[in-house]
């Protein structure tokens, strides 16, 4: 511990991130609201305002402009999504910039415009912010932190504790496209494709889901660590397990080609515009139907269900009838030779 250092692996949402949070952050930050590590905290400001959700997130991305988006759009969508999957309507956003000395003014303007456009399209208001500039070489272009406040829908009760065996696991589309697009856009890999990040707000889709069913148990957007991290996080809070089916996971030829070439597991790759839904099995068809009708959920699929068969584990039944564990991803996804 004494000689340990923060590695890049601590920031990728897998097992190391979890350890960093549990071993250091939760050791000192002991608020009961924080304990469950929700996407956003439900605040109890006064007796009649207990339906406020609050969230924050920092955005670092290389390259800053990528196919399908940019750091600005990402920073607004990400915060909208954290509120949306908590069952809240996103209302107000704050933004804070850390900019490296020498950063292009035109690029900065492009990012800010992209944030404004994204906010407007999603009817959220950017109401406060901050700007700091650091010496050249003590930043990496630009970092953005956004915080958001939203109002929780009436009669929405989503929580790990409501999940039961038999509940369906639904995903809203092909996972991993954001991370692949980012990797693809990084020059040192030298791949070309028209693969685009899935970066988008999921609020519209989530509202349709919540309109359709009162028995949605839990939702999360599979960002860092991908679907594998979300599913493992769910079971780590439960005495149940999850079983998923490989052939039910939506993919495209391009996405599976990319994974094949670089040796990646699609379940470990980040999305920025997808949602994983856990819903009561009796509402599953209904939920799936509204998801598929929505433009951002056309490829929605029920990929598995909650089971009491293996506690705390995610198991995947493969195309060939074999079974294997899906583990919490460890470390960054790196291109491999073997």
């Amino acid at each position, binding site marked *: 511990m004494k000689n340990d250092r923060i590695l890049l692996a601590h920031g990728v949402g897998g097992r190391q991130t979890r350890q960093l949070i549990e071993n250091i952050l939760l050791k000192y930050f002991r608020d009961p609201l924080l304990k469950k590590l929700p996407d956003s905290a439900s605040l109890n400001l006064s007796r009649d305002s207990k339906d406020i959700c609050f969230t924050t997130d920092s955005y670092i991305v290389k390259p800053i402009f990528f196919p399908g988006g940019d750091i600005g759009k990402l920073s607004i969508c990400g915060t909208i999504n954290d509120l949306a999957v908590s069952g809240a309507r996103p209302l107000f956003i704050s933004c804070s910039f850390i900019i490296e000395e020498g950063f292009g003014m035109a690029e900065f303007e492009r990012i800010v415009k992209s944030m404004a456009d994204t906010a407007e399209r999603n009817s959220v208001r950017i109401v406060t912010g901050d700007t700091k500039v650091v010496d050249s070489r003590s930043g990496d272009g630009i970092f953005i932190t956004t915080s958001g406040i939203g109002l929780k829908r009436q009669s929405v009760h989503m929580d790990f504790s409501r999940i039961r065996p038999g509940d369906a696991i639904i995903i809203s589309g092909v996972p991993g496209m954001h991370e692949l697009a980012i990797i693809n856009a990084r020059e040192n890999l030298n791949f070309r494709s028209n693969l685009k990040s899935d970066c988008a707000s999921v609020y519209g889709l989530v509202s349709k889901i919540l309109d359709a069913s009162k028995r949605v148990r839990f939702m999360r957007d599979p960002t860092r660590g991908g679907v594998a991290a979300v599913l493992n996080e769910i079971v780590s809070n439960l005495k149940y397990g999850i079983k998923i089916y490989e052939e039910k996971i939506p993919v495209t030829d*391009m996405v599976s080609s990319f994974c094949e070439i670089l040796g990646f597991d699609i379940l470990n790759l980040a999305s920025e515009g997808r949602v994983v839904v856990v819903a009561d099995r009796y509402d599953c068809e209904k939920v799936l139907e509204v998801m598929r009708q929505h433009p951002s959920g056309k490829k929605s699929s029920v990929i598995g269900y909650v089971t009491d068969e293996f506690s705390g584990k995610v198991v995947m039944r493969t195309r060939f009838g074999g079974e294997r564990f899906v583990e919490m991803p460890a470390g960054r996804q790196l291109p491999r030779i073997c």
Partner: protein
Amino acid sequence: MCLAVPMKVIRINKNIAEVDLAGVRRNVDISLVGKIKPGDYVIVHVGFAIQKLKKTDAETTLKLFAEMKNAT
């Protein structure tokens, strides 16, 4: 060991070929394989083509794959 995938040759410039797999493209070095032309398939490993596939083989493969897709 050794991740390697078959990719289709799109165009060739001296010992570099642009290759494609379902829309994922890259320039690869083709100096380790014999004479190839656009439309051929090569196995790609760490940015090098390491073997040429017989065209008939690759095409039968594509056809079988299409049939398989229709069947499921």
